């Protein structure tokens, strides 16, 4: 029911795990081996195979994956990384962790709120070390063009694939286009585990670097020492603790087998949502029907055509028991970023942030609930 401290009747996302998922975690816990071991290795192998890349390295979060991806791309103090502002703060924050400067690029349009390759091209300087493409809501950014552009300039393309496991462009999976892809397994994601992430790459050197830095640049791990294959270790760089543990790997491995099926259901529901919302006046539904079969359909974003209605519509929906979110406020407008990088102006991104609402969406959402959202939306949008 409505109210500031109540749970929404229709939440933004709703996770349901299967008995076999629970079983996998229970078996792992009972085994008593909880950190970086056989289950993480098995999950990494399965994920790499499904994605069609040489290496998949499980880490503690997508933020960690982005940090390691930028480091692997050689980003350091004084370097620039071109990132969208219409994304979660981690995309840019991880650049700052490396001592670099995030340079914010525009989106293409509110109907295609992915990073604009033309704007990226304009922003490339001698100090640009990498470009990060976020596949917003599970829909492919123009990584075909961006890949060409990055190759031409000798800079790295990093993919922020937090929203887009098993999505593709021209038959190639997202996360397999760039130097590295950063995936998220955060609790509201398509493949969720709680906290978790993964870095994908086809580059053996990047993979070796990331595996090393994930665990304090130690030359061996607890598992190898337990196996007796090595006695001690050296530390050969400044590393981190970005490890994923075994119970989470077990849960991910169990869920990975059903992910294609779940995404297929997400696509069917997205097609139906798009039809319903097509009949609601005053909104733009980003992306096209043609893109849906290639998308992971992570969330259902809409843009209110008219500026200045976001809070009102969000509140109206909340009163009707429908939770919404804003994906995303512009990073460059956050106080932390205004202080550090003043004077950034991205009119399209800012308009998108002021007019976007993300609607409830999950694989087991009923048609009735979709109808309810569309009806409520039509009621609360002022004519």
């Amino acid at each position, binding site marked *: 029911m409505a109210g500031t401290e109540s749970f929404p009747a229709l939440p933004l996302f709703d996770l349901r795990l299967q008995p076999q998922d629970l079983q996998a*975690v229970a078996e792992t816990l009972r085994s*008593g081996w909880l950190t970086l071991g056989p289950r993480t290795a098995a999950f990494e192998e399965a994920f790499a195979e499904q994605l069609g890349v040489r290496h998949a390295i499980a880490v503690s979060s997508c*933020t960690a994956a982005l940090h390691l991806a930028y480091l692997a791309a050689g980003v350091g103090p004084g370097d620039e990384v071109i990132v969208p502002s219409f994304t979660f703060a981690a995309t840019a924050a991880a650049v*700052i*962790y490396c001592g670099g400067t995030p340079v914010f690029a525009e989106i293409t349009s509110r109907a295609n709120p992915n990073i604009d390759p033309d704007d990226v091209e304009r922003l490339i300087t001698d100090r640009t070390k990498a470009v990060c493409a976020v596949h917003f809501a599970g829909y492919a950014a123009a990584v075909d063009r961006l890949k060409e552009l990055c190759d031409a300039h000798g800079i790295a393309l990093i993919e922020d694939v937090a929203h887009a496991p098993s999505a593709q462009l021209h038959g190639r999976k997202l996360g397999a286009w760039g130097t590295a892809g950063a995936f998220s397994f955060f609790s509201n994601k398509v493949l969720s585990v*709680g906290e978790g992430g993964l870095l994908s790459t086809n580059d053996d050197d990047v993979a070796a670097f990331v595996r090393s830095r994930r665990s304090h640049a130690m030359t061996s791990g*607890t598992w190898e020492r337990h196996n007796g294959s090595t006695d001690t270790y050296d530390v050969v760089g400044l590393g981190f*603790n970005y490890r994923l543990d075994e*119970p989470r790997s077990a849960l991910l491995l169990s869920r990975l087998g059903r992910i294609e099926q779940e995404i297929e259901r997400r696509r069917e529901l997205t097609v139906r949502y798009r039809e319903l919302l097509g009949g609601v006046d005053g909104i733009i539904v980003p992306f096209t029907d043609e893109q849906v079969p290639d998308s992971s359909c992570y969330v259902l974003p809409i843009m209110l055509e008219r500026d200045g209605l976001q809070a009102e519509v969000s509140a109206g929906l909340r009163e009707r028991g429908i939770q919404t979110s804003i994906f995303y406020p512009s990073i460059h407008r*956050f106080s932390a970023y205004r202080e550090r990088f003043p004077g950034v102006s991205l009119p399209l991104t800012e308009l998108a942030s002021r007019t976007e609402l993300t609607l409830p969406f999950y694989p087991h959402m009923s048609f009735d609930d979709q109808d309810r959202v569309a009806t409520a939306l039509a009621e609360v949008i002022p004519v």
Partner: protein
Amino acid sequence: MSEWRVPLTDIAVPEEDVRAVLDCLESGWLTMGPRTHAFEQRLSEQVGSPHAITVSSGTAALHLACLAAGIGPGDEVIVPAVTFVASASAPRYVGATPVLCDVRSPLDFNIDPDDAARRITPRTRAIVAVHFCGYPADVHALRELCDAHDLVLIEDCAQAIGALIDGDGRQAGTIGELGAFSFFSKKQLCVGEGGMVTTADAARAERVRLLRSHALSSSTWDRHRGHDPAYDVVDVGFNYRLDEPRAALGLSRIERLDASIERRRATVRSYREKLAGIDGLELPFDEQQVTRSSHFAFPVLLADRAERDRFRAELKAAGIQTTWYPALHSFTEYEQFAPPGGLPQAQATADRHCALPLSSSMDEEAVDMVVSAVADVLS
């Protein structure tokens, strides 16, 4: 060899722990929710610290502790060389320089406050007191030193949850401005990967909470409960959150923590009794320190490095897993931080010690097996 007769550690996960995690997974809420909140409250009571903030690892705890201590580029942080590498990495994450200092001796291998005092410069900002293997460092001496020089004292309690500082029951992590704990799988309280920051200072606690989750002005949980969907990002933060299944596991296991530490202590006492008098073996610390330690590991001392290496190799051949902890300045990455003149006591500690198997589920039969193998090796 993967089938040790006596492994270094062994983690028992009883069915009540499994049930707690499964209940959490069935709930469908996996991040920053009621279980994390309850675990933090319980930890706060357990450790006796007004604020306990769970994070993704002990390393994350140290990183956030450094930030909450106000450490930044150009600062120096004094760190003992006998510790896990994260103690020195964390100051580097924030742009500071770790200044390695010595320990008292192989028989008392915690940070030497006198050596720490000698390494204070105008740029020193903090001292990291590591309670190594669970044995409490001399934080009273370090507290005085820090107060006299206006430094922040950070306690690295990664191996020392439940260690007692005094006879009066005060615990590690409550003397310094900030404490950093680990819930890594080998630790006394383990969840897989996890950690915690403790502090008595509300402002520092607030800063740790903020930076733990990307400095967002509201959380997913707040928004789920119907709060305004808008948020601001007020600093450059991180994703150092612990998730709900791990909080559920920690919450279940913490009920057995005191008993588990008591069992470790009893095992160590039994070891010490049975090992006493074996030629060529020395036992660090004394009975008072054994009473106060929370016993992450049980290190013994051999005559020198060659003898220690032989000792370990022969125990390995006998199916007994041991380990040792290299001193930081011997790592390729940390040679650059080795002070002129070296760190003789840290080096001697690294060269001479060997940690024997220890866990809360270890029985007397396993202790006897280790003791008899040790006696054989040294006979």
